[in-house]
């Protein structure tokens, strides 16, 4: 279990970075989908909502094909690197963050926007005020995004390759130990995975609940 620390650190680094990138994509995109008025809005929302249930192995397959040495992005030599896992996990988490952001903002009273404009808010100030107003469900969206990637195994395995010391994360390590019949090690890793997931979500929950006035 000497490699437990680097595996855990890599899991956290990869999943947190993927969640952060998903937030940078999902928060503005979800806002546009929630507040915008354009012809294909409902269609795009349906795509995002479908994307929330994307099977990680399908994402893994797609990203692997893209990054494969002979694939369109093969020249970047990213397959079986942590970057490949981050890309795959971002594709998994971004629809979750986007969809839940849109849902959070759509739950607000639509007349609130009129009221904010009527009080002299610019468009940016209006959006910031709405984000602040929906901060509890937005943090829940962030937690759901993180939860969807820290726990996935299919994509990480397919694009990371579970290479010891390089791309092995907690979930892929659990799969490996189970396949070897090393159940004690697998259970220990599982407990560790659950513990860090709990700790991260606990920290986010504290921030979320502190936001309640």
């Amino acid at each position, binding site marked *: 279990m000497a490699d437990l620390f680097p595996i855990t650190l890599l899991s956290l680094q990869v999943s947190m970075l993927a969640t952060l990138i998903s937030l940078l994509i999902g928060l503005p995109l979800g806002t546009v989908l929630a507040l915008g008025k354009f012809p294909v809005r409902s269609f795009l929302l349906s795509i995002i909502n479908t994307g929330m249930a994307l099977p990680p192995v399908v994402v893994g397959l797609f990203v692997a094909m893209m990054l494969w040495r002979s694939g369109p992005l093969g020249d970047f030599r990213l397959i079986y690197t942590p970057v490949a896992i981050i890309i795959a996990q971002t594709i998994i988490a971004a629809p979750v963050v986007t969809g839940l952001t849109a849902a959070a903002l759509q739950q607000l*009273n639509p*007349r*609130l926007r*009129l*009221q*904010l*404009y*009527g*009080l*002299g*808010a*610019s468009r940016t*100030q209006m959006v910031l*005020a709405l984000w*602040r*107003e929906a901060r509890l469900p937005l943090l829940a969206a962030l937690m759901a995004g993180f939860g969807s990637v820290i726990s996935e195994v299919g994509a990480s395995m397919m694009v990371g390759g579970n290479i010891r010391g390089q791309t092995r994360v907690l979930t892929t390590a659990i799969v490996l130990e189970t396949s070897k019949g090393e159940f004690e090690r697998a259970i220990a890793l599982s407990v560790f995975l659950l513990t860090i997931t709990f700790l991260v979500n606990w920290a986010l929950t504290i921030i979320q609940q502190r936001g*309640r*006035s």
Partner: protein
Amino acid sequence: MTALIEVRDLLVRREKQTVLEIEHLAVQKGEVLAVVGPNGAGKSTLFLTLARLLKHERGTIHFNGTESMSTLEYRRRIALVLQEPLLLDASVRENAAVGLGFRGIPKAESDRRAGHWLERMGVAHLADRSARRLSGGESQRVSLARAFVLEPELLLLDEPFTALDAPTRARLLEDLKSVLAETSTTTIFITHDLREAERLGTRMAVMLKGRIHQTGEPREVFAHPADVQVAEFLGTTLG
């Protein structure tokens, strides 16, 4: 005397239906114009159009004699109070100061101004309380303080008392009347309640089916309705 706001030949259509058609409407500085009419008369459409929250298809809206003002600049010279208080999930003080924040007023000054108006609206003791824990009447008082704190040139009120019980409504109406008299804030007050209109308005406009049928001092309008429809709405007879 220059009108603060003057509407000419205004046409608003929604889903290809004409919902508002106003030949002329002017509100002088310091005046409180009560716009009355039944549900569906187009009062709220007028309200949203005057707040530049709804685009009009035709016509002009002059503010202080000019039409060439950006929407943001225009909105920062007015304030609006809607039927629902629509307070943010923050303290009462923060809510009262939100419009000042949008205008980049420093926090110390905005807190002081918000404090003054919360006091004036009788809710200063609630300043540190969460806006989520207020009664309907208290919320609407905060909403009014949030508007007055901006010292707007034009105050737009859209049925602000509708959701309140009768005694709360009566008290708030009296307080609002005295604040308006004291500040001489030019106000357009949308309501379907004739007693409220009579109580608060220095002038009254009767709106039916998207058109203004009559404007005048409330007493005058009640005594001499311009046509049968106005008389019917007011429950009087043509005189």
